[in-house]
């Protein structure tokens, strides 16, 4: 509307003409984000060596996964956001179709049906959905003017509800929660009117008891255990008591790398996967956890900055949602291990041992970098 607004769109356009293509603009990678992610991954491998009981095999496998993650990130960074947007409807339909297929022909493991077995490897369609849902929401909402109108909100909620419900049915509470969050972030960032937000909160508050009655036994138990872990110290509460003990006993400076008694003596369950931050807390103390949280914070700030710099709404919403979903990962995991939140199976991003989440997260950062790269040269 004003000249200032008009001018703000220009510097990006003019730099393209002024500057010779640097390494970073040529590779479409964001140097800061890349550096932070590499730092995070190195820290993760360092901690994993201790958490896995000094199993170099685990560390190597994890490093290979990280390599694969970086590869996927670099590939996705090369794609135009516009092209991603064009592909979105098809990806969404594919994702939902795979989720239905999982329900019908999936492979069961540990009481949940989450996998599709293809010759040679197993595939988890919910991971694809983690990326596709924010894309779909953003792609739908940016067709009209923002903030979205009520009708569009309802439709976008439907887009979100279908995969969320399918994943919750697997059952996989953690992933469905993360996916719903990524959708909600798109809505919130799109400038949703506050009155909608407030009424939604009221509705959710009212719906909680209903939700409770639909929860599975193990989900209810997790909530109950969260509220009072000491009620079942040897069963469901064991994990939380042991993780709190690990972190608490670490103190300020920790017991030293490889010296954590809780983790090295197997008192801490899942010490190299979901509960790995307890190992950091025990062995490296509050310094170790503080450093980790600082890294995460910097990544989130960088992500949001890149989102703010984006030149179109789709890029902004996608980048913002990816960044905030990453935040939710961190928050839910650390909150769970420290006993602030209920036990939900969410890994600690880049640190927990395990393949799919790392590749998915890196793919997300790839899209973020693509957004960043094409904000620098919007017309290319």
């Amino acid at each position, binding site marked *: *509307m004003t000249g200032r*607004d*008009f001018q*703000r*769109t220009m510097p990006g356009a003019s730099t393209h003409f002024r500057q010779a293509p640097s390494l970073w603009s040529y590779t479409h990678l964001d140097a800061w984000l890349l550096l932070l992610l590499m730092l995070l991954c190195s820290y993760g491998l360092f901690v994993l060596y201790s958490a896995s009981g000094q199993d170099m095999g685990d560390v190597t496998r994890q490093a290979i996964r990280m390599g694969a993650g970086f590869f996927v990130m670099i590939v996705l960074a090369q794609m135009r956001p516009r092209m991603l947007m064009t592909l979105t409807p098809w990806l969404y339909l594919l994702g939902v179709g795979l989720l239905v297929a999982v329900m019908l022909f999936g492979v069961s493991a540990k009481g949940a049906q989450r996998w599709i077995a293809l010759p040679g490897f197993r595939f988890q369609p919910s991971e694809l959905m983690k990326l596709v849902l924010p894309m779909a929401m953003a792609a739908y909402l940016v067709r009209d*003017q*923002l*903030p979205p109108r009520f009708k569009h909100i309802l439709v976008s909620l439907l887009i979100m509800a279908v995969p969320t419900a399918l994943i919750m049915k697997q059952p996989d509470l953690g992933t469905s929660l993360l996916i719903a969050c990524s959708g909600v*972030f798109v809505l*919130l*960032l*799109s*400038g949703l009117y506050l009155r909608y937000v407030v009424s939604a909160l009221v509705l959710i508050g009212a719906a909680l008891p209903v939700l409770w009655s639909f929860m599975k036994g193990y989900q209810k138990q997790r909530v109950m255990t969260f509220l009072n872990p000491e009620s079942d110290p040897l069963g469901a509460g064991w994990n939380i008591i*042991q993780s*709190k*003990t*690990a*972190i*608490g*006993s*670490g*103190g*300020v400076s920790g017991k030293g790398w490889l010296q954590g*008694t*809780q983790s090295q*003596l*197997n*008192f801490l369950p899942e010490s190299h996967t979901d509960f790995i931050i307890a190992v950091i*807390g025990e062995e490296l*103390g*509050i310094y170790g*956890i*503080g450093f980790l*949280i600082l890294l*995460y*914070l910097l990544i*989130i*700030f960088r992500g*949001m900055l890149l*989102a*703010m710099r984006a*030149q*179109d*709404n789709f890029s*902004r*919403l996608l980048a*913002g949602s990816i960044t*905030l979903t990453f*935040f939710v990962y*961190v*928050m839910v995991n*650390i*909150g769970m291990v*420290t*006993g*602030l939140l209920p036990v939900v199976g969410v890994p600690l991003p880049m640190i927990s041992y395990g393949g799919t989440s790392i590749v998915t997260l890196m793919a997300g950062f790839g899209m973020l970098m693509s957004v960043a790269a094409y904000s620098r040269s919007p017309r290319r």
Partner: protein
Amino acid sequence: MQQETLKDYSQDARIFKFRAALALVVVTLAFSVLLGRVYFLQVIEHERYAAISDRNRIQLQPVAPRRGLIYDRNGILLADNQPTFSVTLLREEIRNIDETLEALAELIEITDRDVERFRQRLQQRRRPYESVPLRFRLTEEEIARISLNYHQLPGVQVEADLIRYYPYGESLAHVLGYVGRINERDLETLDPVKYAGTHYVGKLGVERFYEPILHGDVGSRKVETNARGRVLRILEQDDPTPGVDIQLSLDLRLQQFTEKLLEGRRASVVALDPKTGGILALVSTPAYDPNLFVMGISATDYNALRDDIDLPLFNRAVRGGYPPGSTIKPIIAMAAIDSETVRPDYTIWDPGYYQITPGGRRYRDWRRGGHGRVNLNLAIAQSVDTWFYDVGHRMGNEPMARYMRMFGFGEITALDTPEAIRGVLPTVDWKRGSLGEPWYPGDSVNMSIGQGYMVATPLQLAIAANVLANRGRWQQPRVLKGVLEETDEGRVLTLPDLVHSREVPEDVVIRHPEFWDPIIQGMVDVVHGPTGTARRVAQGMTYRMASKTGTAQVVAIPDDGRYNPDELSERHHDHALFIAFAPVEDPQIAIAVVVENGGGGSSVAAPIARQVMDAWLLNDYGTEEEPDDDGA
């Protein structure tokens, strides 16, 4: 149009930036909450969680003390502790025992017998989280193989243990007894704290009796364990007090020499040192290998021992109840003269039988034709039954029982043979109580020659011989010489309080102490008299021996019948008995020999006693050839 789009974009950008900034504020706040939480756990609550963490990993474990060693009188080690490694299974940590056993069988050799014994032990009541051993005496290679596969074998542990070993096996089984794994019955009586780390307890014999001092006191150690309870390292140790080493009065050489003499027989010999009451040898044959029992005997091995017709598990020396026969005649004679029933010069005419009333039942003498005129000396030396029938009948039950009791019959007097039985010393009250019958004069007649209801053990006979050797003075009969106590001046032999757990009987009260002489002279003449029943063993003897032969009927012989060994199966032959002490002037050994179904005391039992005495007194362990054996 272009203008409007631009305007829209810039407005969208502004909205987005605002929301994004808001999101960053929320993110920062949320991370602050996380950091606050971590601060709370790691700084404010640190002490509490550090304590919980230590409690998790540190456990107080009992440490079993080293069991006291057992030496013979010359310092030869009779019971040792051998360090061994065994593989044990912790039931609570194992989901499927069969699978674990299969997995272990691929790593180490496990026989069916091991599995059988393991399952037996598994059935027994245990303390919670007490591991159950599967195989003992692992080789180093086997230990290594198990250690390498530890992580795949939850609940499987290699435990170092000291295991009792009896280097002389069968030779001492009936004296030492053995230790065995603590079972349900033991748990009821043992102090749970003192035995917290102990797996073995004395089950029989010396091992059982001296358990309180051999065991020692439990120690403890702080260990670091993992969540599966596997010990990773020791943080602190409060050493246990080892059990006390003890020395026995037993002489291993004499014991083994005696054992050889009895080889192939069902027999027992007990030899005492009259000076101290110490047991020099206590042999019961056949015996068994006590090492089989230490780690739990397999049912197959046990059944074989139990069903053996010669009863190797049976400790004849302390539990074998035999009619003492003529061996008690010196004491009966003492009872007769000291109770003033008859005078020391009492003489009878022996026609070969005795009748309580003329024309009544004839009590036969062992010599069909009789001995003619018989006085006390001859009565003992030639073991003349009729003389004793006569005085026994005259005395009646009471004086006989009273004197017999003073010599230890019907009583348990030995300190540390915990399995010993009392035998039977029949009295009027006893007969009424157990048989509901009055005491008949015929009972006194039978009792006078150690038949009828009388039952005594070889140990009791040896003790009686010892009391005779000491002329009525009692020394506590015991296997123990003393405990080896560490002092500043080295090892000192002292007596433990345990020796007071059984009172030493009072010395025999004799109204006429001078009566010992004729009694002992009678016993001397058994060997050295021209007509003594055991005169053959005197051949070449360089010392003087006082003794008494005995022959106990196994089957009743009809009044008018004759004992003819050829007509009876071997197991119905008479038991051969013999008691003796030597040298008469300064007794250094008292002995009782019982050979089951051996025939006559003089022909079978006496030569054995002679050889044992030659060995002890003359250090003559030479050839063990059988002496001349020319009939009963």
